[in-house]
């Protein structure tokens, strides 16, 4: 009987302490006024995605620097030509996309652009939908910008699970 009381009293004391622990607070949504660069690069990223949707190789290549490459977890870097070929493939269908949470570090002649992209698409009827974390390095080229490097990873992918997956397709 006494043991039961002690046990129950201990639980009681423990539970009384629980409210002192930080509880995940409710998120306060905010509606932001994007910076000029976020507005600019959101537009350029959308242009690229629209070129992919329309299979407009000229428009897409016109936005890439000569040494453009894509880096993904657990894979060799993908050269510009290979990446363009992969997203221009007729059996890759980019149905829709959303870009969000973009931030831009303006370095003068270069800009580091980070964002999340949600896409719906298929490749050879295989589902290529998902959410991706993207970091793009844009470089000034005269009066315009060219995409020089892309680092992209699927959101939620872990290194252990990624190792067991097949080689990234380049659609990311």
């Amino acid at each position: 009987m006494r043991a039961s009381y002690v046990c129950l009293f201990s639980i009681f004391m423990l539970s009384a302490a629980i409210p002192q622990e930080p509880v995940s607070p409710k998120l306060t949504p905010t509606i932001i006024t994007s910076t000029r660069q976020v507005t600019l690069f959101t537009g350029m990223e959308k242009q690229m995605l629209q070129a992919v949707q329309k299979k407009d190789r000229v428009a897409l290549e016109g936005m890439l620097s000569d040494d453009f490459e894509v880096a993904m977890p657990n894979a060799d870097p993908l050269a510009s030509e290979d990446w363009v070929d992969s997203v221009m493939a007729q059996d890759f269908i980019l149905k829709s996309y959303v870009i969000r949470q973009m931030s831009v570090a303006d370095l003068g002649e270069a800009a580091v652009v980070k964002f999340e992209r949600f896409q719906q698409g298929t490749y050879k009827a295989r589902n290529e939908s998902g959410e991706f974390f993207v970091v793009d390095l844009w470089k000034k080229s005269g009066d315009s910008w060219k995409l020089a490097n892309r680092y992209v990873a699927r959101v939620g992918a872990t290194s252990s699970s990624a190792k067991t997956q097949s080689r990234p397709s380049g659609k990311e």
Partner: protein
Amino acid sequence: MTFKARHTFAFLLVILAANLLLAQRPLDNPQQPDIAPSGHNPEVLQGTMERAKPTGPTVVTGNGINYHGGPVLQGNPVPIYVIWYGNWNGTGSNTQATVSLIDTFLNSLGNTGYERINTTYGDNTGNVSGNLALASQVFDTGSEGTRLKNSRISAAISAQLKSGGLPTDPNGVYLFLTSSNVSESGFCSQFCGFHTHQTLNGADIKWAFIGNSDRCPSACAIQSTGPNSPAPGVGGADGMVNVITHETEEAITDPDLNAWFDSTGNEDADKCNFRFGPTSTASNGAQFNQTFGGHNWMMQMEWENSRGGGCDQTLGGPFF
């Protein structure tokens, strides 16, 4: 177990259950996370058509922006409260000249053709008046330090409400304006300002953050020298005016983030962000597109919720 023991056991169980229930309650505001997601989740993805919701007689839809059932601020005028945070007795644009300029702006913006664009928005009880006015303002030289995050801004505003420095007014808009030595997570890299709402001092308070754009002119200023610059290259006050306009328009038409926005989550001012339309040139070489209150101003256009919808500089004016 005896009757007494059973009784005590049951009593302890009740207290235990009550404690566990209390533990489920979230902490009170303003303890908020510092990186908040966008308040609007796009209902449909890019490239699909918007669909207007059926609404009451005072709500007009079908102009590229949709009504989602929440209230708008209908005050005539909508009271604006300002917290000047940081050092506003400094140099550059961190001066009392900026304070005076923005006071003038807030006291003359109401009922202009520009502000009346907002009258095209309403809820099921009435429309936005198109009038706003500076109600009161306070100075906080840095109660929460110079490295801010959302929770610290909430705390600073909350302190003003609790101390009576500012009234607790759920029908007003609180502008939290920071000097250029103050940082805020995401300011300059992601945004120039934002608006939100949360329960502070027991009321649903609508507040907005706007940083001095002299901290990052390439990100948040329109031009290095504005029409009201005290010296060449000091454009912070004009840059802030532009963002203040953006945030107040949105805080009035979408105060609780559940009234007016489009299928991608963009509110009325987002749809015209950094778009100015035709401009004129001031004597100091700066561009401007509005004149009122004895000053020239360079302000982004707003989305008019009529005539099919579009960005314009004045109610009923041409879309650009």
